[in-house]
Protein backbone atom coordinates (compact mmCIF):
# COMPACT_ATOMS: atom_id res chain seq x y z
CA UNK A 1 0.00 0.00 0.00
CA UNK A 2 1.33 3.40 -0.99
CA UNK A 3 0.38 5.96 1.66
CA UNK A 4 0.35 8.72 -0.95
CA UNK A 5 -2.53 7.04 -2.84
CA UNK A 6 -4.94 7.20 0.10
CA UNK A 7 -7.82 9.62 0.36
CA UNK A 8 -8.87 11.45 3.53
CA UNK A 9 -11.46 8.81 4.43
CA UNK A 10 -9.05 5.95 3.67
CA UNK A 11 -6.40 7.54 5.89
CA UNK A 12 -8.99 8.01 8.62
CA UNK A 13 -9.91 4.31 8.46
CA UNK A 14 -6.21 3.40 8.49
CA UNK A 15 -5.61 5.56 11.57
CA UNK A 16 -8.57 3.92 13.31
CA UNK A 17 -7.21 0.46 12.56
CA UNK A 18 -3.70 1.58 13.60
CA UNK A 19 -2.27 0.53 10.23
CA UNK A 20 0.02 3.54 10.23
CA UNK A 21 0.56 6.77 12.18
CA UNK A 22 0.16 10.40 11.17
CA UNK A 23 3.92 10.88 11.59
CA UNK A 24 4.53 8.08 9.07
CA UNK A 25 2.05 9.57 6.59
CA UNK A 26 3.41 13.10 7.10
CA UNK A 27 6.99 11.92 6.60
CA UNK A 28 5.98 10.09 3.43
CA UNK A 29 4.52 13.32 2.09
CA UNK A 30 7.50 15.44 3.16
CA UNK A 31 9.89 12.96 1.48
CA UNK A 32 7.84 13.04 -1.69
CA UNK A 33 7.70 16.87 -1.62
CA UNK A 34 11.48 17.06 -1.29
CA UNK A 35 11.88 14.89 -4.37
CA UNK A 36 8.96 15.93 -6.54
CA UNK A 37 8.55 19.63 -5.86
CA UNK A 38 11.86 20.54 -7.52
CA UNK A 39 10.06 19.71 -10.73
CA UNK A 40 6.53 20.98 -9.94
CA UNK A 41 7.13 24.11 -7.79
CA UNK A 42 3.78 23.78 -6.06
CA UNK A 43 5.06 25.05 -2.70
CA UNK A 44 6.40 28.47 -1.73
CA UNK A 45 7.31 27.19 1.72
CA UNK A 46 7.31 23.75 3.29
CA UNK A 47 6.38 23.98 6.98
CA UNK A 48 8.16 20.81 7.98
CA UNK A 49 8.52 21.55 11.68
CA UNK A 50 4.90 22.59 12.05
CA UNK A 51 3.76 19.50 10.13
CA UNK A 52 5.75 17.06 12.27
CA UNK A 53 4.62 18.76 15.50
CA UNK A 54 1.01 18.56 14.39
CA UNK A 55 1.42 14.94 13.29
CA UNK A 56 2.82 13.97 16.69
CA UNK A 57 -0.04 15.73 18.44
CA UNK A 58 -2.52 14.00 16.14
CA UNK A 59 -0.99 10.61 16.89
CA UNK A 60 -1.29 11.31 20.59
CA UNK A 61 -4.92 12.30 20.23
CA UNK A 62 -5.67 9.23 18.11
CA UNK A 63 -4.00 6.87 20.57
CA UNK A 64 -6.37 7.90 23.36
CA UNK A 65 -8.90 5.37 22.12
CA UNK A 66 -11.71 7.90 21.69
CA UNK A 67 -13.34 8.94 18.42
CA UNK A 68 -11.36 11.56 16.55
CA UNK A 69 -12.24 13.97 13.71
CA UNK A 70 -11.89 12.79 10.13
CA UNK A 71 -9.20 15.36 9.25
CA UNK A 72 -7.11 14.46 12.30
CA UNK A 73 -3.58 13.57 11.25
CA UNK A 74 -4.25 14.12 7.53
CA UNK A 75 -1.63 16.29 5.77
CA UNK A 76 -2.79 19.25 3.68
CA UNK A 77 -1.48 22.27 1.78
CA UNK A 78 -2.65 25.87 2.15
CA UNK A 79 -2.67 28.58 -0.50
CA UNK A 80 -0.19 31.28 0.49
CA UNK A 81 -2.85 34.00 0.74
CA UNK A 82 -4.38 32.29 3.81
CA UNK A 83 -2.80 33.05 7.19
CA UNK A 84 -1.21 30.31 9.30
CA UNK A 85 0.13 31.84 12.52
CA UNK A 86 3.90 32.03 12.71
CA UNK A 87 4.38 31.02 9.07
CA UNK A 88 5.15 33.18 6.06
CA UNK A 89 2.16 34.40 4.02
CA UNK A 90 3.37 36.11 0.86
CA UNK A 91 0.26 36.07 -1.37
CA UNK A 92 2.83 35.46 -4.12
CA UNK A 93 3.99 39.08 -3.85
CA UNK A 94 7.34 40.69 -3.15
CA UNK A 95 5.51 43.27 -1.06
CA UNK A 96 4.76 40.48 1.46
CA UNK A 97 7.97 38.51 0.91
CA UNK A 98 8.94 38.55 4.60
CA UNK A 99 5.46 38.80 6.10
CA UNK A 100 4.87 36.31 8.91
CA UNK A 101 1.21 35.74 9.73
CA UNK A 102 0.39 37.18 13.17
CA UNK A 103 -2.73 35.01 13.61
CA UNK A 104 -4.62 32.07 12.10
CA UNK A 105 -7.34 32.50 9.49
CA UNK A 106 -10.68 31.13 10.69
CA UNK A 107 -10.46 28.21 8.24
CA UNK A 108 -7.04 27.34 9.66
CA UNK A 109 -8.38 27.49 13.23
CA UNK A 110 -11.09 25.09 12.16
CA UNK A 111 -8.65 22.68 10.50
CA UNK A 112 -6.31 22.84 13.50
CA UNK A 113 -9.16 22.09 15.88
CA UNK A 114 -9.69 18.83 13.96
CA UNK A 115 -6.00 18.00 14.29
CA UNK A 116 -5.00 18.72 10.67
CA UNK A 117 -1.36 18.59 9.57
CA UNK A 118 -0.15 21.54 7.47
CA UNK A 119 2.64 20.62 5.07
CA UNK A 120 3.21 24.04 3.59
CA UNK A 121 2.03 27.10 1.71
CA UNK A 122 1.34 26.88 -1.99
CA UNK A 123 2.16 29.11 -4.93
CA UNK A 124 -0.35 31.48 -6.50
CA UNK A 125 -0.61 34.39 -8.90
CA UNK A 126 0.37 37.58 -7.07
CA UNK A 127 -2.58 38.47 -4.79
CA UNK A 128 -4.54 35.74 -6.62
CA UNK A 129 -4.62 37.90 -9.74
CA UNK A 130 -4.29 35.49 -12.62
CA UNK A 131 -5.37 32.28 -14.29
CA UNK A 132 -2.03 30.48 -14.71
CA UNK A 133 0.09 31.03 -11.55
CA UNK A 134 2.65 32.67 -13.86
CA UNK A 135 2.02 36.00 -12.08
CA UNK A 136 3.69 34.73 -8.88
CA UNK A 137 6.66 36.90 -7.91
CA UNK A 138 8.60 33.80 -6.87
CA UNK A 139 8.23 30.78 -9.14
CA UNK A 140 6.23 29.20 -11.93
CA UNK A 141 4.26 26.11 -10.94
CA UNK A 142 4.14 23.34 -13.52
CA UNK A 143 1.14 21.25 -14.44
CA UNK A 144 1.88 17.72 -13.10
CA UNK A 145 0.21 16.18 -16.20
CA UNK A 146 2.54 18.06 -18.57
CA UNK A 147 5.30 20.19 -17.09
CA UNK A 148 5.50 22.43 -20.15
CA UNK A 149 2.00 23.68 -19.30
CA UNK A 150 0.45 25.90 -16.64
CA UNK A 151 -1.51 24.40 -13.73
CA UNK A 152 -4.17 27.10 -14.04
CA UNK A 153 -4.63 29.79 -11.46
CA UNK A 154 -4.65 31.46 -9.26
CA UNK A 155 -4.68 28.46 -6.86
CA UNK A 156 -2.21 26.66 -9.16
CA UNK A 157 0.07 25.51 -6.33
CA UNK A 158 -2.83 24.06 -4.35
CA UNK A 159 -4.14 22.15 -7.39
CA UNK A 160 -0.70 20.91 -8.48
CA UNK A 161 0.12 19.80 -4.92
CA UNK A 162 -2.91 17.49 -4.83
CA UNK A 163 -2.41 16.28 -8.43
CA UNK A 164 1.29 15.49 -7.81
CA UNK A 165 0.52 13.67 -4.54
CA UNK A 166 2.29 16.38 -2.54
CA UNK A 167 -0.77 16.81 -0.27
CA UNK A 168 -3.90 14.82 0.46
CA UNK A 169 -6.03 17.93 0.00
CA UNK A 170 -5.56 21.67 -0.10
CA UNK A 171 -7.29 24.98 0.42
CA UNK A 172 -7.53 27.49 -2.39
CA UNK A 173 -9.44 30.70 -2.91
CA UNK A 174 -11.78 31.59 -5.77
CA UNK A 175 -12.51 35.15 -6.89
CA UNK A 176 -13.23 34.57 -10.59
CA UNK A 177 -12.40 30.90 -11.10
CA UNK A 178 -9.22 30.50 -9.06
CA UNK A 179 -10.23 27.15 -7.53
CA UNK A 180 -12.18 25.66 -10.44
CA UNK A 181 -9.78 26.51 -13.28
CA UNK A 182 -6.67 24.93 -11.70
CA UNK A 183 -8.81 21.99 -10.50
CA UNK A 184 -9.91 21.49 -14.11
CA UNK A 185 -6.38 21.86 -15.54
CA UNK A 186 -4.83 19.54 -12.93
CA UNK A 187 -7.60 16.93 -12.81
CA UNK A 188 -8.63 17.35 -9.16
CA UNK A 189 -11.98 18.22 -7.56
CA UNK A 190 -12.37 21.86 -6.54
CA UNK A 191 -15.32 23.56 -4.88
CA UNK A 192 -16.07 27.27 -4.96
CA UNK A 193 -18.61 27.69 -2.13
CA UNK A 194 -21.53 30.15 -2.09
CA UNK A 195 -20.35 33.64 -1.20
CA UNK A 196 -20.68 33.73 2.60
CA UNK A 197 -20.55 29.96 3.18
CA UNK A 198 -16.92 30.06 4.37
CA UNK A 199 -15.31 32.76 6.52
CA UNK A 200 -12.83 35.03 4.74
CA UNK A 201 -11.20 36.15 8.00
CA UNK A 202 -7.46 35.74 7.57
CA UNK A 203 -7.57 35.47 3.77
CA UNK A 204 -5.52 38.19 2.09
CA UNK A 205 -8.16 40.20 0.22
CA UNK A 206 -8.33 40.60 -3.53
CA UNK A 207 -11.97 41.57 -4.18
CA UNK A 208 -14.03 41.31 -1.02
CA UNK A 209 -17.45 40.94 -2.67
CA UNK A 210 -16.22 37.85 -4.55
CA UNK A 211 -13.40 36.11 -2.62
CA UNK A 212 -14.21 32.69 -1.16
CA UNK A 213 -11.99 30.01 0.34
CA UNK A 214 -12.71 26.46 -0.77
CA UNK A 215 -11.36 22.89 -0.83
CA UNK A 216 -9.40 21.05 -3.53
CA UNK A 217 -9.14 17.27 -3.23
CA UNK A 218 -8.55 13.92 -4.90
CA UNK A 219 -12.24 13.10 -5.06
CA UNK A 220 -15.69 14.47 -4.29
CA UNK A 221 -16.01 12.72 -0.93
CA UNK A 222 -12.82 14.36 0.36
CA UNK A 223 -13.92 17.72 -1.01
CA UNK A 224 -17.16 17.41 0.96
CA UNK A 225 -15.35 16.47 4.17
CA UNK A 226 -13.13 19.56 3.95
CA UNK A 227 -16.01 21.86 2.99
CA UNK A 228 -18.00 20.71 6.01
CA UNK A 229 -14.97 21.34 8.22
CA UNK A 230 -14.43 24.94 7.09
CA UNK A 231 -17.94 26.31 6.43
CA UNK A 232 -20.16 28.27 8.78
CA UNK A 233 -20.86 31.62 10.36
CA UNK A 234 -17.88 33.46 11.83
CA UNK A 235 -18.21 36.54 14.06
CA UNK A 236 -15.01 37.84 12.44
CA UNK A 237 -16.56 37.95 8.96
CA UNK A 238 -19.78 39.96 8.72
CA UNK A 239 -20.60 38.44 5.32
CA UNK A 240 -20.39 34.83 6.52
CA UNK A 241 -23.66 32.95 6.90
CA UNK A 242 -24.69 30.01 9.05
CA UNK A 243 -25.31 27.15 6.65
CA UNK A 244 -27.42 24.16 7.39
CA UNK A 245 -25.87 21.00 6.10
CA UNK A 246 -28.71 19.06 4.52
CA UNK A 247 -28.53 15.34 4.88
CA UNK A 248 -31.12 14.68 2.20
CA UNK A 249 -29.61 12.69 -0.67
CA UNK A 250 -30.15 13.98 -4.16
CA UNK A 251 -30.54 11.34 -6.81
CA UNK A 252 -29.34 11.98 -10.33
CA UNK A 253 -32.48 10.44 -11.87
CA UNK A 254 -34.69 13.07 -10.21
CA UNK A 255 -32.53 15.89 -11.41
CA UNK A 256 -33.24 18.71 -13.85
CA UNK A 257 -29.95 19.71 -15.44
CA UNK A 258 -29.76 23.03 -17.28
CA UNK A 259 -27.32 23.40 -20.17
CA UNK A 260 -26.78 27.10 -20.92
CA UNK A 261 -26.17 27.70 -24.63
CA UNK A 262 -23.88 30.67 -23.92
CA UNK A 263 -21.31 28.28 -22.43
CA UNK A 264 -20.92 26.32 -25.66
CA UNK A 265 -20.48 29.21 -28.05
CA UNK A 266 -17.59 30.10 -30.34
CA UNK A 267 -14.12 29.80 -28.93
CA UNK A 268 -14.64 26.48 -27.16
CA UNK A 269 -12.22 23.70 -28.09
CA UNK A 270 -14.27 20.97 -29.85
CA UNK A 271 -12.52 18.31 -27.75
CA UNK A 272 -13.54 20.08 -24.53
CA UNK A 273 -17.10 20.34 -25.83
CA UNK A 274 -17.12 16.61 -26.63
CA UNK A 275 -16.04 15.68 -23.09
CA UNK A 276 -18.63 17.95 -21.45
CA UNK A 277 -21.42 16.76 -23.80
CA UNK A 278 -20.46 13.18 -22.96
CA UNK A 279 -20.81 13.91 -19.23
CA UNK A 280 -24.22 15.44 -19.88
CA UNK A 281 -25.22 12.33 -21.86
CA UNK A 282 -24.13 10.07 -18.99
CA UNK A 283 -26.38 12.02 -16.63
CA UNK A 284 -29.21 11.77 -19.13
CA UNK A 285 -28.72 8.01 -19.50
CA UNK A 286 -28.92 7.78 -15.71
CA UNK A 287 -32.37 9.38 -15.89
CA UNK A 288 -31.74 13.08 -15.42
CA UNK A 289 -33.81 15.55 -17.41
CA UNK A 290 -31.65 17.76 -19.64
CA UNK A 291 -33.06 21.23 -20.23
CA UNK A 292 -31.51 23.75 -22.65
CA UNK A 293 -31.43 27.14 -20.92
CA UNK A 294 -30.08 30.63 -21.50
CA UNK A 295 -28.16 33.07 -19.31
CA UNK A 296 -28.49 35.99 -21.72
CA UNK A 297 -26.18 38.44 -19.95
CA UNK A 298 -23.17 36.10 -19.92
CA UNK A 299 -21.55 38.14 -22.70
CA UNK A 300 -21.14 41.11 -20.35
CA UNK A 301 -19.65 39.11 -17.48
CA UNK A 302 -15.95 39.47 -18.22
CA UNK A 303 -16.12 43.24 -18.73
CA UNK A 304 -18.25 43.56 -15.60
CA UNK A 305 -15.90 41.33 -13.60
CA UNK A 306 -12.74 43.12 -14.73
CA UNK A 307 -14.16 46.45 -13.61
CA UNK A 308 -15.46 45.28 -10.23
CA UNK A 309 -12.37 43.25 -9.28
CA UNK A 310 -9.77 45.94 -10.02
CA UNK A 311 -11.96 48.54 -8.32
CA UNK A 312 -12.16 46.51 -5.14
CA UNK A 313 -8.52 45.45 -5.45
CA UNK A 314 -7.32 49.04 -5.80
CA UNK A 315 -9.03 49.81 -2.48
CA UNK A 316 -7.91 46.59 -0.75
CA UNK A 317 -4.30 46.97 -1.86
CA UNK A 318 -4.15 50.53 -0.52
CA UNK A 319 -3.24 48.94 2.83
CA UNK A 320 0.26 48.14 1.52
CA UNK A 321 1.73 51.51 2.32
CA UNK A 322 5.26 50.73 3.48
CA UNK A 323 4.33 51.70 7.04
CA UNK A 324 2.20 49.08 8.80
CA UNK A 325 3.71 45.91 7.35
CA UNK A 326 5.12 44.52 4.14
CA UNK A 327 7.94 45.80 1.99
CA UNK A 328 9.06 49.35 2.74
CA UNK A 329 11.60 51.66 1.16
CA UNK A 330 11.62 53.81 4.30
CA UNK A 331 15.11 52.75 5.34
CA UNK A 332 16.56 52.40 1.85
CA UNK A 333 18.86 55.40 1.39
CA UNK A 334 19.08 54.84 -2.35
CA UNK A 335 15.37 55.61 -2.61
CA UNK A 336 15.96 59.14 -1.31
CA UNK A 337 12.80 59.26 0.77
CA UNK A 338 12.12 62.78 2.00
CA UNK A 339 8.45 62.73 2.96
CA UNK A 340 5.45 60.50 3.65
CA UNK A 341 4.29 60.48 0.01
CA UNK A 342 7.68 59.11 -1.08
CA UNK A 343 7.27 56.20 1.33
CA UNK A 344 3.97 55.26 -0.32
CA UNK A 345 5.05 55.81 -3.92
CA UNK A 346 8.37 54.03 -3.72
CA UNK A 347 7.41 51.14 -1.42
CA UNK A 348 4.45 50.30 -3.64
CA UNK A 349 6.37 50.93 -6.85
CA UNK A 350 9.06 48.45 -5.80
CA UNK A 351 6.81 45.96 -3.99
CA UNK A 352 4.00 45.28 -6.46
CA UNK A 353 4.47 43.23 -9.64
CA UNK A 354 3.00 44.05 -13.06
CA UNK A 355 -0.48 42.52 -12.66
CA UNK A 356 -1.35 44.18 -9.32
CA UNK A 357 -0.07 47.45 -10.77
CA UNK A 358 -2.25 47.00 -13.83
CA UNK A 359 -5.32 46.27 -11.73
CA UNK A 360 -4.68 49.09 -9.27
CA UNK A 361 -4.53 51.49 -12.23
CA UNK A 362 -7.67 50.09 -13.91
CA UNK A 363 -9.52 50.18 -10.60
CA UNK A 364 -8.40 53.68 -9.72
CA UNK A 365 -9.43 54.83 -13.19
CA UNK A 366 -12.85 53.14 -12.98
CA UNK A 367 -13.53 54.74 -9.60
CA UNK A 368 -12.19 58.19 -10.41
CA UNK A 369 -14.36 61.25 -10.76
CA UNK A 370 -15.84 61.51 -14.23
CA UNK A 371 -15.46 57.79 -15.00
CA UNK A 372 -17.28 56.25 -12.02
CA UNK A 373 -20.72 56.23 -13.68
CA UNK A 374 -19.52 54.83 -16.99
CA UNK A 375 -17.46 52.03 -15.45
CA UNK A 376 -17.99 51.08 -11.81
CA UNK A 377 -21.65 52.02 -11.46
CA UNK A 378 -22.46 50.45 -14.82
CA UNK A 379 -20.65 47.26 -13.81
CA UNK A 380 -22.67 47.06 -10.58
CA UNK A 381 -25.89 47.34 -12.60
CA UNK A 382 -24.81 44.67 -15.05
CA UNK A 383 -23.85 42.46 -12.11
CA UNK A 384 -27.49 42.57 -10.99
CA UNK A 385 -28.56 41.43 -14.46
CA UNK A 386 -26.18 38.50 -14.33
CA UNK A 387 -27.35 37.60 -10.83
CA UNK A 388 -30.94 37.73 -12.06
CA UNK A 389 -30.08 35.36 -14.93
CA UNK A 390 -29.04 32.72 -12.39
CA UNK A 391 -32.01 33.33 -10.08
CA UNK A 392 -34.41 32.89 -12.99
CA UNK A 393 -32.70 29.79 -14.34
CA UNK A 394 -32.71 28.06 -10.96
CA UNK A 395 -36.51 28.32 -10.93
CA UNK A 396 -36.44 25.84 -13.82
CA UNK A 397 -33.46 23.57 -13.09
CA UNK A 398 -31.60 22.11 -10.09
CA UNK A 399 -28.07 22.50 -11.40
CA UNK A 400 -26.24 23.71 -14.48
CA UNK A 401 -23.63 21.67 -16.37
CA UNK A 402 -20.99 23.64 -18.26
CA UNK A 403 -17.29 23.47 -19.07
CA UNK A 404 -14.93 25.12 -16.54
CA UNK A 405 -12.76 26.50 -19.31
CA UNK A 406 -13.00 26.68 -23.11
CA UNK A 407 -9.55 25.11 -23.50
CA UNK A 408 -7.33 22.66 -21.57
CA UNK A 409 -4.08 23.76 -19.85
CA UNK A 410 -2.06 26.03 -22.14
CA UNK A 411 1.70 26.29 -22.57
CA UNK A 412 3.76 28.23 -20.05
CA UNK A 413 4.48 31.67 -21.54
CA UNK A 414 1.82 31.37 -24.23
CA UNK A 415 -0.40 34.17 -22.94
CA UNK A 416 1.90 36.22 -20.71
CA UNK A 417 2.30 39.12 -23.13
CA UNK A 418 -1.45 39.67 -23.52
CA UNK A 419 -3.28 40.36 -20.23
CA UNK A 420 -6.69 40.52 -21.93
CA UNK A 421 -6.34 36.97 -23.31
CA UNK A 422 -5.70 35.82 -19.72
CA UNK A 423 -8.79 37.69 -18.50
CA UNK A 424 -10.94 35.88 -21.07
CA UNK A 425 -10.06 32.55 -19.43
CA UNK A 426 -12.62 33.43 -16.72
CA UNK A 427 -15.44 33.37 -19.25
CA UNK A 428 -17.25 30.32 -17.75
CA UNK A 429 -16.21 30.79 -14.13
CA UNK A 430 -16.58 34.56 -13.63
CA UNK A 431 -20.38 34.86 -13.98
CA UNK A 432 -20.86 32.37 -11.10
CA UNK A 433 -18.88 34.69 -8.84
CA UNK A 434 -20.75 37.83 -9.85
CA UNK A 435 -23.96 36.03 -8.83
CA UNK A 436 -22.37 34.49 -5.71
CA UNK A 437 -23.59 30.93 -6.37
CA UNK A 438 -21.57 27.77 -5.65
CA UNK A 439 -19.87 25.66 -8.34
CA UNK A 440 -17.60 22.65 -8.51
CA UNK A 441 -15.06 21.36 -11.02
CA UNK A 442 -15.18 17.60 -11.56
CA UNK A 443 -12.64 15.78 -13.73
CA UNK A 444 -14.69 14.62 -16.73
CA UNK A 445 -12.12 13.32 -19.19
CA UNK A 446 -8.82 14.02 -20.86
CA UNK A 447 -7.51 15.39 -24.13
CA UNK A 448 -4.32 13.38 -24.52
CA UNK A 449 -2.84 13.71 -21.04
CA UNK A 450 -4.59 17.00 -20.24
CA UNK A 451 -7.56 16.82 -17.85
CA UNK A 452 -10.83 18.63 -18.56
CA UNK A 453 -13.24 19.66 -15.82
CA UNK A 454 -17.03 19.67 -15.84
CA UNK A 455 -18.47 22.64 -13.97
CA UNK A 456 -21.55 21.89 -11.87
CA UNK A 457 -23.23 25.13 -10.78
CA UNK A 458 -25.88 25.11 -8.06
CA UNK A 459 -28.29 27.51 -6.41
CA UNK A 460 -27.28 29.55 -3.34
CA UNK A 461 -26.09 27.36 -0.43
CA UNK A 462 -26.81 24.13 -2.31
CA UNK A 463 -23.26 22.84 -2.07
CA UNK A 464 -24.52 19.50 -0.85
CA UNK A 465 -26.73 19.01 -3.88
CA UNK A 466 -23.72 19.75 -6.12
CA UNK A 467 -21.50 17.41 -4.12
CA UNK A 468 -24.09 14.59 -4.16
CA UNK A 469 -24.56 14.85 -7.91
CA UNK A 470 -20.80 15.09 -8.48
CA UNK A 471 -20.21 12.03 -6.35
CA UNK A 472 -22.69 9.95 -8.38
CA UNK A 473 -21.33 11.26 -11.67
CA UNK A 474 -17.73 10.62 -10.58
CA UNK A 475 -18.46 6.89 -10.69
CA UNK A 476 -19.91 7.08 -14.20
CA UNK A 477 -17.21 9.15 -15.93
Amino acid sequence: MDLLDLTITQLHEGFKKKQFTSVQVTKAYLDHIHKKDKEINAYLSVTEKLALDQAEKADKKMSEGKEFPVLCGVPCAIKDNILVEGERATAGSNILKDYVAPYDATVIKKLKSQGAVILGKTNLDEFAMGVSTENSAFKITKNPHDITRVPGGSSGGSAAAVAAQEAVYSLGSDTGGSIRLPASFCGVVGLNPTYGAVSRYGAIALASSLDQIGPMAKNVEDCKVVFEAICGKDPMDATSVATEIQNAKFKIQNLRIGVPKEYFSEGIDPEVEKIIKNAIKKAKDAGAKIIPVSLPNTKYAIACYYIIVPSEASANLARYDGIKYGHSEIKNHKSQITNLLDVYLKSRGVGFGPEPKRRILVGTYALSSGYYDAYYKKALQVRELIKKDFIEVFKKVDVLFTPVSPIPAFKIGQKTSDPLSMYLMDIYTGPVKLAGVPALSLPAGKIGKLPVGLQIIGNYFEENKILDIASQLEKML
Partner: protein
Amino acid sequence: MISKEQVEHIAKLARLELTKAEVQKMQTDLSSILDYFEVLKKAPQKVADRGRAAGRPTSTSLRKDEVIKGPASLANNLVALAPDTKDNYIKVKQVL
Protein backbone atom coordinates in the same frame (compact mmCIF):
# COMPACT_ATOMS: atom_id res chain seq x y z
CA MET B 1 -5.16 55.43 -26.75
CA ILE B 2 -4.83 56.59 -23.17
CA SER B 3 -2.12 59.24 -22.83
CA LYS B 4 1.14 59.10 -20.92
CA GLU B 5 -0.06 61.99 -18.73
CA GLN B 6 -3.30 60.13 -17.90
CA VAL B 7 -1.40 57.03 -16.80
CA GLU B 8 0.92 59.15 -14.68
CA HIS B 9 -2.01 60.97 -13.13
CA ILE B 10 -3.85 57.74 -12.21
CA ALA B 11 -0.61 56.23 -10.88
CA LYS B 12 -0.14 59.23 -8.61
CA LEU B 13 -3.73 58.96 -7.36
CA ALA B 14 -3.03 55.29 -6.64
CA ARG B 15 0.24 56.15 -4.85
CA LEU B 16 2.21 54.02 -7.26
CA GLU B 17 5.59 55.00 -8.68
CA LEU B 18 6.07 53.70 -12.22
CA THR B 19 9.22 53.61 -14.35
CA LYS B 20 9.14 55.12 -17.84
CA ALA B 21 8.95 51.66 -19.38
CA GLU B 22 6.06 50.75 -17.08
CA VAL B 23 4.13 53.89 -18.05
CA GLN B 24 4.52 52.99 -21.71
CA LYS B 25 3.43 49.38 -21.19
CA MET B 26 0.42 50.47 -19.09
CA GLN B 27 -0.66 52.87 -21.86
CA THR B 28 -1.04 49.92 -24.24
CA ASP B 29 -2.49 47.50 -21.68
CA LEU B 30 -4.99 49.94 -20.20
CA SER B 31 -6.13 51.07 -23.63
CA SER B 32 -6.97 47.55 -24.77
CA ILE B 33 -8.64 46.71 -21.43
CA LEU B 34 -10.73 49.90 -21.45
CA ASP B 35 -11.70 49.28 -25.10
CA TYR B 36 -12.96 45.86 -24.10
CA PHE B 37 -15.21 47.46 -21.45
CA GLU B 38 -17.13 49.21 -24.27
CA VAL B 39 -19.24 46.04 -24.58
CA LEU B 40 -21.12 47.11 -21.44
CA LYS B 41 -22.70 49.96 -23.38
CA LYS B 42 -24.79 47.34 -25.16
CA ALA B 43 -26.12 45.87 -21.90
CA PRO B 44 -29.82 46.40 -21.15
CA GLN B 45 -30.40 49.79 -19.55
CA LYS B 46 -33.30 48.73 -17.38
CA VAL B 47 -31.82 47.12 -14.34
CA ALA B 48 -33.05 45.62 -11.16
CA ASP B 49 -32.44 47.63 -8.02
CA ARG B 50 -29.26 46.61 -6.35
CA GLY B 51 -29.86 43.82 -3.91
CA ARG B 52 -33.57 43.48 -4.69
CA ALA B 53 -33.09 40.68 -7.17
CA ALA B 54 -30.88 38.80 -4.82
CA GLY B 55 -31.88 35.31 -3.84
CA ARG B 56 -29.49 35.27 -0.97
CA PRO B 57 -29.22 37.36 2.16
CA THR B 58 -27.51 40.59 1.21
CA SER B 59 -27.61 42.12 4.65
CA THR B 60 -24.51 41.71 6.68
CA SER B 61 -24.73 40.91 10.32
CA LEU B 62 -22.55 42.85 12.69
CA ARG B 63 -21.18 41.49 15.90
CA LYS B 64 -21.60 43.32 19.19
CA ASP B 65 -19.56 46.48 19.55
CA GLU B 66 -17.42 45.29 22.38
CA VAL B 67 -13.77 44.80 23.09
CA ILE B 68 -12.58 41.30 22.26
CA LYS B 69 -9.73 40.25 24.46
CA GLY B 70 -6.79 39.10 22.43
CA PRO B 71 -3.48 37.82 23.73
CA ALA B 72 -0.70 40.39 24.15
CA SER B 73 1.27 38.30 21.68
CA LEU B 74 -1.16 39.32 18.92
CA ALA B 75 -0.56 43.04 19.49
CA ASN B 76 3.17 42.41 19.69
CA ASN B 77 3.06 40.32 16.51
CA LEU B 78 1.24 43.13 14.72
CA VAL B 79 3.60 45.90 15.82
CA ALA B 80 6.62 43.71 15.12
CA LEU B 81 5.63 43.61 11.45
CA ALA B 82 6.03 47.37 10.98
CA PRO B 83 9.19 48.27 9.06
CA ASP B 84 10.09 51.21 11.30
CA THR B 85 9.29 51.35 15.02
CA LYS B 86 10.41 53.16 18.14
CA ASP B 87 9.56 52.12 21.72
CA ASN B 88 6.86 49.77 20.37
CA TYR B 89 5.25 52.56 18.34
CA ILE B 90 5.05 52.58 14.54
CA LYS B 91 7.19 55.38 13.14
CA VAL B 92 6.10 57.49 10.17
CA LYS B 93 7.64 60.39 8.29
CA GLN B 94 6.63 63.84 9.44
CA VAL B 95 3.15 64.66 8.13
CA LEU B 96 2.99 68.43 8.71
